[in-house]
Each structure stands twice: as structure tokens, then as C-alpha cells.
């Protein structure tokens, strides 16, 4: 059954809450061992999609297959394949960490012989060993978050779905979770949603950006850069006259645009940005040209690599521009109610 390479396959997923539509025809697939980042502005439908994938909610229409098992028809079989950590990471307050994981291990049908080992392993991976006897209700947010992650990886499932797992973690723990995710790469498929974009860029093989319940961009971070960033920005630190520089650079390529605030530092250097055509690297030409201009000193030049954040902003903005009506269900319901 599992010879197909796709662990998650979603086709035309639609979910309506009464009249508001949260998910509006999403299709995607996740390959075995792939780590997919799920991005989107607040209210985009990320959590809703994840809840449907895990079988907690029923879709209004559309098909979700987990390891070739249709979730709607065989929810229990599909749930065996998934480790899930919901948004807000709900945990029973009264239990101790180890007790909780033991109970979850039983529910997840981990065979008795392996249970202990798996629990130890999860505690170790999430750096919870020392907190294993503490009562969950008294843990700090970051520790609770780690308990949630430990629970998700506990049964070593084929698929791990985590809704904003790194929220509330300190930088050490973020690095730790990043390493943890990296160590699972190739063995398990993962879907991770987050608003911390550098995180996603570092850990994910592929990114899916959704907005207004639709997929607006999909691909590796680099391919998204190509698609959504229409300028290349070079940053330079120079000392000299800005207007003559503009004229001079126009000789090289008249599409180059220069902006800079002209605020010189103590040594008289100021920072400027040069915008050029997308998807080509003119750094060498520009540098040569700058150094050849008389009365101009150059201290640094580098090509700015657009962050995922910029890609995200560009992609979501483009989708808002194209599907302007009914983009923000939150706002429309708010207006209806008031």
C-alpha cells in the first residue's frame, strides 16, 4: 500500500464554518521524509487545514489521504500514522510529565516492550529529563511546549503535524527544536506552521503559503524568491557625491535605482541601496564600476538576499490584490455583527 511516495495528499479541500469559509480549495502533497512549512497571515486557514488532516474535523468537501488512507473513511487507521501538536498546545494540568507521556503512549498503541524506551527517547530529545516529575500545570510555557512536542514525536509516526511549535521557546530551545527536526528529516514527513519565518527557512524543504483559504505560493524558499521578488538589491557603503554617482551608474545600466539617506557615519561613509533587475547578479559589474568613479570611495558592497519574510509579504500582498473581495473573513463577520 505504501509504495506510493506521498504520505499526505490533499485534493480540493474546502471547509466552511457556517457562512465563513476558512479553507477554499486547497490541494497539495507531501512526499515521504519531506518537511513542509505552512505559512500564512492570521486567519489564513492553517490551523483549520491541519485539524482536517489529523481527522479532528470533517472537511466540507475534498479528499485527504494519509499514507493512501482516506481520512474521512478510515479515521482511526489514519490517526495511527500521525503525531499532532495542536495550536495552543492543550495539556492536562494535573498530571506529571512522565505520567502524561505514559498515558499517551498507551493511547497511541505503542507496544508495551517499546513504551519505556520511546518515552525516555522523547524526554531526552526534548530536553525534559529533569522536568519529567513535575506537574504539567506548574511548568513554564516553554516547558509545556516541549511536552507537546515530545508527545507529537512519541510514537515515531510517519507524519508529524505541529501547529506553531516554537512559539514561546527561548533561543536555545529554538535551536534545539531545529536540530531535532533536522534529525528526523528523511524519516518522517512533517508539516510545521509558524510565524517565525527564519525558522521555517532553516528547517523546511518546501514552503506553502496560504492566504484567505487558498494556496498563494508553493515551492522551495529559493524558487519562491525567484517568483515573488522582482528586484535585486545591493547594499553599498560609500563616501562621495550621490547625484554624480547616479549619473555614473546610469552609464552601466540605466535601470539601476539608487536610494540612500545620505546620513554619513563618523568616517564619512553612508549606506546606499541599489535596486536592479531581478534574478541576476550584477555585483561584480557594479563594484568595478564604483571603484572606477573618481572621488568616490567604496567600503563595502553586498547583494542582499531577500528574506523569507519579504517573500511572504510579497506573496500575500499579491494574493490580496488579486482576490480583493472577501479576503478577510474576520473583518466581514465583525462588520456583520456590529
Amino acid at each position: 500500500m505504501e509504495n506510493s511516495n506521498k504520505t499526505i495528499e490533499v485534493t480540493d479541500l474546502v471547509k466552511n464554518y457556517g457562512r465563513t469559509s476558512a479553507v477554499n480549495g486547497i490541494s497539495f502533497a507531501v512526499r515521504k521524509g519531506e518537511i513542509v512549512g505552512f505559512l500564512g497571515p492570521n486567519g489564513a486557514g492553517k490551523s483549520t487545514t491541519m485539524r482536517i488532516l489529523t481527522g479532528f474535523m470533517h472537511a466540507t468537501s475534498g479528499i485527504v489521504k494519509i499514507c493512501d488512507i482516506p481520512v474521512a473513511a478510515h479515521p482511526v487507521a489514519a490517526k495511527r500514522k500521525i503525531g499532532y501538536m495542536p495550536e495552543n498546545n492543550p495539556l492536562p494540568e494535573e498530571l506529571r510529565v512522565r505520567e502524561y507521556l505514559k498515558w499517551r503512549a498507551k493511547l497511541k498503541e505503542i507496544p508495551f516492550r517499546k513504551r519505556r524506551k520511546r518515552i525516555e527517547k522523547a524526554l531526552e530529545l526534548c530536553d525534559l529529563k529533569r522536568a519529567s516529575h513535575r506537574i504539567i500545570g506548574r511548568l513554564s510555557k516553554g516547558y509545556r511546549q516541549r511536552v507537546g512536542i515530545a508527545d507529537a514525536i512519541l510514537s515515531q509516526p510517519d507524519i508529524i503535524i505541529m501547529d506553531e511549535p516554537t512559539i514561546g521557546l527561548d533561543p536555545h530551545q529554538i535551536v534545539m527544536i531545529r536540530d531535532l527536526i533536522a534529525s528526523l528529516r528523511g524519516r518522517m514527513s512533517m508539516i510545521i506552521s509558524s510565524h517565525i519565518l527564519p525558522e521555517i527557512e532553516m528547517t523546511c524543504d518546501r514552503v506553502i503559503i496560504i492566504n484567505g483559504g487558498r494556496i498563494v505560493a508553493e515551492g522551495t524558499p529559493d524558487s519562491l524568491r525567484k517568483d515573488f521578488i522582482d528586484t535585486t538589491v545591493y547594499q553599498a557603503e560609500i563616501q562621495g557625491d550621490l547625484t554624480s554617482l547616479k549619473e555614473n551608474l546610469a552609464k552601466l545600466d540605466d535601470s539601476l535605482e539608487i536610494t540612500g539617506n545620505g546620513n554619513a557615519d563618523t568616517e564619512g561613509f553612508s549606506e546606499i541601496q541599489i535596486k536592479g533587475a531581478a534574478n541576476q547578479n550584477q555585483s561584480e559589474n557594479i563594484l568595478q564600476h564604483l571603484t572606477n568613479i573618481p572621488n568616490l570611495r567604496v567600503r563595502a558592497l553586498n547583494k542582499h538576499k531577500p528574506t523569507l519574510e519579504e517573500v511572504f509579504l510579497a506573496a500575500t500582498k499579491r494574493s490580496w490584490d488579486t482576490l480583493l473581495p472577501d479576503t478577510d473573513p474576520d473583518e466581514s463577520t465583525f462588520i456583520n455583527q456590529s
Partner: protein
Amino acid sequence: MRHFITLLKHELRVLLISPGTYIAAILFLIVMGFVFQDYLTESINASRKHSPGAEFIRSFWLPVFFIVPLLTMKSIAEERRTGTLETLMTTPVTPIEIVLSKFSAAYLYYICLWIMTFSFQVVLYYFAQDPKLIDPAPLIGGYTFIALSGFLFISIGIFSSSLTKNQLVAAILSFAMVFIIIIVGRNLTDWFNQNGNHPLLLRQIVEYLQIFQHAEDFTSGVVETRPVVFYLSGAAVLLTFSIFMIETRNSKN
């Protein structure tokens, strides 16, 4: 059903470690102690047709009104509110197992509370040594009635809790439902007896809703099949609805 025991153990453990369980039990014992004492003094002052132990069982409605909503309001509503229902429902556990484990835990607790009241009877037996006061048949019947009607009352509570994510709403709903089937059922009969010719079906339904009459019968040692059918099937229907609510309500809100 492979997870039922795991879930039930978890429910019982949570009950055992939460202080609310013990507070409720103590309050219950205090209230029931007063009720028992009341019947005792009454039976001394005026000779009654039943033993005080049996009379005591007949005041079942008093604790049922407050203890059933208190016991069950948290069960599903609270898990829905905090979101732990979501983590539970995304393991290979079925809604049937969830509802049955919640029901069983609440039912066991309810029965434990009533078993504790048995100590009143024991105390009475030691001090009174009067066979007229202690008659085992009404007591057996009475506690059977409690066990049987508990199925229905607790499942009403579980059902209310499955309807909402607000504990208070759940408590009010279960109080209202328990109140209706206990009090309204009796008053309807009185009313029916006063003015005749009503549709047969309605009469038949009302005939089942004789919870006070059932208590009377059981404590007099009369055991019929009709109440047994009524309580068990009522509980089964309500628990089925609860299972259905757990499965579908997530998708709505």
C-alpha cells in the same frame, strides 16, 4: 474498545488527584447525613409504614439535583474548552470509548457516594438493634434503584456536557433535564389522572416517567421490568447522542 480501560484509568486517576472530588463527597455526606437524621427523628415521633432507611432512599432526588450536574459538567465540556479533546481525538481512540469512559468514571463515583451512605444504615443498626428499623429487603431494593436510575441521571449529565464547551451551561442543562424527568413526570401523571382521555401514546410515555413511583416500588421490594428497561434504554439513547455530538460538534465550532 481496546482503549476503554486506559481511558477509564486516566479518568479515575484525575478524579482521585483533584481536591474537588473529596469536597463534593464530604458535602454530599453532610447533606445526606442531615436527611437521614431527619427521617430518623420522624420515624421515632410518628410511626411510619417504612423503615427510615427506605424512606431515606426515597429522597434520592435531593442529591441527584445537585450532585449529577456537579459530577458531570466538566467531563466533556472542559476538555473541549481547553482543547485536550483535540489531542485525545487525534489518537486512535474512538468517540465511543471516550464517552463510555467518561460515563463509567462518573457513574462509579456516583455509586461510591451512595455506598458511603450505607454507613448510616450500619450505624443505625449498631445502635438501634431494632429489627423494625432495619429491614434488608427495602434496602436492597432501594440501593438497586439508586444504581439503576444512576445510569439515566449520569448519562443525562454526560450528554449535557457534550453539547457545549461551557461547564456552567452544561450544569444548568443537566439540572433542567433531571428536574424535568423527575418532577414534571410526576406532575403530569397527577394531571392526567384528573382529566382523562389523552392519546394512548402520551399516556404510555408518562407511565414510564414514574421515577418516584419506581423508588416507591423498589423500596417496597417490588421489582418490575418496566423501570429497568426505561433507565437502561434512556441511558443508551443519551450516550449515543453524546457520541454523535463528540464526532460532529468539533467541525462546527
